[in-house]
Structure formats: C-alpha cells, structure tokens
C-alpha cells in the first residue's frame, strides 16, 4: 500500500507531532508514504470565504499532483479531508467550471486535474483499505483498559454530502478503531459537536465554551483521553485546556491524542517517537511503557 501524504499546514507547524506519529504508525503498518512537499494549503474553508475559485484551483493542483504520482491521497486532518471532498464534488458536478479551473491550472502550472484521485483520511484508509483484522494482527501493546473518547471534528460529518462516513449523524468509525486497539470507547454528548477552533480569533469566549463543553463532557463520562482526527480540534482541546480549566474552575488534565498517535501506541511506538512531550497535557508515561 502506498499513499501520497498530504500533511496540511498544522502538521508542518504547531502540530509536528502529528506528522511524526503518522510516519511511525504507517512504517509499522507497512503503509508506504510519499510526502506531497509541493502541495499547498487546502484553504481550510477560509480562502473560499474570499475567493472560492482560488481555493478550488489550489486544491485541483494538489489532486493533479497526486494523479501524476499515480497515488491516492492520505489526509491526516479532518478539515483538509472535508475541504478536499467538497472541492472534488463541486468540480465533478459542474464540468464547465472544472474546465475553467483546469484551464487556469494548466496555464500556471502545466498540470491538469483528471478527476480520478481518491482522497481519504488516515483512519478511513485503516477501515476501508487496510482492514481492522490486519491492524489487530500488528498490535504489540494492546491499550487494554484505556478509556478513549472520540472527537470527530465537524468536517468529518457535515454537511453530509461531503462526508464519506457510513452514518454521519451517528458515526462509529473511530470507535471501531479504538476497540480494535484494545481500548474502550467512551460515549458522551459532545462527541459530534464543534470544538470552536474556527472562531478562536473572532470570539474566544464562545470558542472556549465549545471546547470546554467537549472536554468536560468527555471527562465526566470517564475518559482517560480524547482522540481526534483533526489537528485543529487538537489545538483547541489541548493547547487551550488551561484556559478551560480556569473558566470553569475544574481540573481536567485530559490528554488529547491525534488518531495516528493512538494507533502507533498500540503498535509499540515510544513516547519520544510520538513527541508526546510536546503536548500541553502530557499523557502519563505508562501509556508507552
């Protein structure tokens, strides 16, 4: 198995532990990755608030690069995945628009998007392509007794037409992986809610309330950790946890893991390899013991 790895911005910036963990997990699983070093930001639904066609051309360029590599794209960010799927669906639905996008793309880069590349998130690859049985056979350190609350991230589910989840109103993809790793999934009311990250700069109070609700909900349901496929959710849930604790006068100390980190832990990766020390809320050392 071989994928073109689309890192996104956060895994190259404030979430470098995500990229490290993805490389470790995939090496242990025997999934070969070729990093797309020339791919640009997906726009995160922000560039399209100003210039939707600019965002679509940047994404068409990314898709065309993967098509040239002859590889499907693996995302490690739910927001990138949702934005990519939306761009793909939009371009497929409107052939005249695709032609216009491709004309620009060809003139500026020589590339052309043919509409053939498959785009999937790391966890979707594990479920759809790799298979849970094969994943289980690679586990060397089952996460028995570890209670994990999945936090999906909006772009994985909504709007439904851009989601590849089986049942985006009540998904269980992450829970299936949690169970396969030997851990116990925790159900809680905020599992499918927004973390508030997109309005962090516009209305920090609201962003912190949303993050706080999720963390307090997960902790209250007995979680030892939260796992998320979205590094933006991760930033809010982890880096801003002290603010949430102050605002609500509670102690949380709830580690927030990226999904590749959780998988890699069960595959025997070390604390250092997964850069768990860089988390604001560090998971206990025993987790990688």
């Amino acid at each position, binding site marked *: 198995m071989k994928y073109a790895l689309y890192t996104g*911005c956060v895994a190259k910036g404030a979430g*470098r532990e995500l990229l490290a963990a993805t490389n470790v997990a995939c090496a242990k699983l025997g999934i070969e990755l070729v990093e797309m070093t020339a791919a640009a930001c997906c726009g995160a639904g922000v560039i399209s608030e100003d210039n939707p066609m600019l965002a679509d051309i940047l994404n068409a360029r990314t898709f065309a690069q993967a098509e040239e590599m002859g590889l499907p794209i693996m995302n490690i960010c739910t927001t990138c995945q949702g934005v990519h799927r939306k761009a793909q669906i939009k371009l497929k639905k409107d052939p005249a628009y695709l032609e216009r996008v491709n004309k620009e793309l060809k003139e500026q880069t020589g590339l052309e998007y043919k509409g053939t590349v498959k785009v999937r998130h790391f966890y979707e690859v594990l479920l759809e392509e790799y298979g849970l049985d094969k994943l289980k056979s690679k586990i060397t350190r089952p996460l028995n007794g570890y209670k994990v609350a999945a936090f999906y991230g909006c772009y994985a589910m909504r709007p439904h037409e851009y989601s590849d989840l089986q049942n985006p109103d009540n998904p269980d993809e992450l829970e299936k992986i949690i169970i396969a790793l030997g851990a116990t999934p925790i159900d809680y009311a905020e599992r499918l809610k927004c973390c508030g990250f997109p309005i962090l700069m516009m209305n920090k109070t609201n962003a912190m309330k949303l993050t706080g609700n999720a963390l307090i909900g997960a902790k209250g349901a007995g979680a030892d950790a939260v796992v998320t496929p979205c590094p933006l959710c991760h930033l809010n849930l982890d880096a801003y946890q002290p603010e949430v604790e102050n605002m609500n006068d509670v102690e949380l100390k709830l580690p927030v893991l990226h999904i590749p980190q959780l998988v890699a832990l069960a595959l025997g990766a070390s604390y250092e390899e997964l850069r768990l020390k860089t988390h604001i809320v560090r998971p206990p050392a025993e987790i990688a013991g």
Partner: protein
Amino acid sequence: MSKVTFRIFRFDPANDPTPRYQEYEMPLEPGITLLNCLNKIKAEKDATLTYRMSCGSAICGSCAVRANGHAILSCKTQASELVKDGVIQLDPLGNTSVIRDLAVDLEPFWASIRKVKPWLMPDATDNPEKERLQSQEDYLKIDHATTCIMCGACWSDCNVLEVDKKFIGPAALAKAQRFIYDTRDVKTIDRLEEISEPHGVWDCTHCGECSTRCPTDARPLGRIEEIKQAAMAEGVHGNSGARHVLAFRETVGKRGLLDENYVPVRSVGFLNIPGLLGLMPVGLRMLWRGKNPPVIPHSVDKVEEVKKIYSRSEEFRK
C-alpha cells in the same frame, strides 16, 4: 405491521412541571410521515399531546421537532426512516424554551430575523412607473435563501447558539444574504457592516449543522459563506473575521502554507494590545513545550506555481 415505540418529551409547566418522557406504541402504516403519527397519537391515544402543525406539505415550517437528537420537519419525514431499535425519540427544538411538550417559544428566533431588516430597501429617489424587475441571473443569486420556510431546524441544532444566545443564528443570516445579494437593494454596505458586528456572521464556526438540518434549499452555511465573500469584496474589513481571511490568504500566497505565528496576530489586530496580550499565555505555553510553529515558516516546493495562481486572483472573481 411491526409496532414502534414513540418516546415523546412531555412538559406542561402549568400542571406538571417536571419534564418526562411518555411512551406510545403504534404500528407504522407504510408511507406514514412523522407528523401523521403525531396526529394519530393525538386523535386516538392522548389528546393532551401538544405540538405545532399547519400545512402538512413542507411549506409552512411549523412542525419541526427533534427526532433522535436532530432537528427535522416532521411532515416531510417518513417515520420508518427514524426507527432505531424499535424506538423513535422526539424532543422539542433545541436552543429554545419549551411552552408545552413539543411546542417551543420561537420569539428569540423571530427577533433574530427582524434584526437583519428583512425587507427590500430600494433607491428611494427613483420613482419607477412599474415594478423593479430582476434578470434571471440576478434572481439566481437569492434563489436558495428565498426557499427558507422559517422552521427553526437550523436554529435548533446550531452549535454557536448553544453557547451564545446573542448569536444572530443561521436563519437570520440566510435572510440577510437574500437582501445583501438582491440587486434592487441599495443598503448592501450598511447591511454588511451590521452583520459583521460581534455575534454576527463571523461568529459562525461552520459546524455545518444548519445546512445538514435545513429541509429546503436555503442551506444557511452556503449563504453565510456568500455574505463573507460579499463583505471581503466590498471592503468591509474592520473586524477580526475579515482580517483573519486577509491574513490567511496572504500567508498561503507567499509560502503555500499557513504561517501560524502571523495569522493570529494580524487577525486580532496589530494595534489591539489587550487582544495581543490575550495570545501570550497560549503562545508561551506552546513555546515552552516546543510546540510553537517554526519561527521561519516553512514554504512548499514549487511555491512559484502558487504565486502564479495567486497573481490571477482577481480574474477568478469574475
């Protein structure tokens, strides 16, 4: 016909102030809508059950409720699609206060709609002899928003309203788009400035609930994006939301990737000292952990291709 249990939220503050669930068992006739199930329960089992309805044809927007935790229009939904382990759970719309059972107080919802001045404000000086006509092309810009039936499904499931009762809400934003994009309206800039105020359009997190729950083609999230596009195009940039878009676009155009050190500072505003100080604790915390974004931001390979695409940006707006 297999029997289904309707688990329905009951609350009558005048006579029974403790909210509870009541169960009604009923076989599902093939093709029956949820609204017809409610009518059947009321007619045959319990006349005290209270809910709103009128047209039964997905036009009046009065029969929205929450089924299994998500807002739906009950006249437009097949009951059979909602059965989970033999049960359909019904609750009143979220982000509201309950009047009785499934009937909620929608006054805050209507107040939000009134706030966006949902009427046409044409040029008062021109005195046309006949009605102001629109081209088909111009009409299509507002076609989606005009299909809103004000059912409140988007309001119910909006994540921001759960934490901020002052948020304008998705239906009012869709209504605002309808007038901002109306080529006969002359108050576009005023409308964009008002909607860019705190608790307005930039407070939406794009959680996508509104468009997912919307039973028509109004799809508020799409309209919200269009309002932001208009605000950016018309130069209504004096707020952190618009500055965030400008900073985001700028850094991606330079390096192909986001500069996570620069975007927050420009979004908050270079001269906004309290705002900048507010960024300090998390910045220092991340620096201490080695989690800070690289000081010299990373650029993608072949970044000149990105710059070439960017140089054509204005063409893409046409």
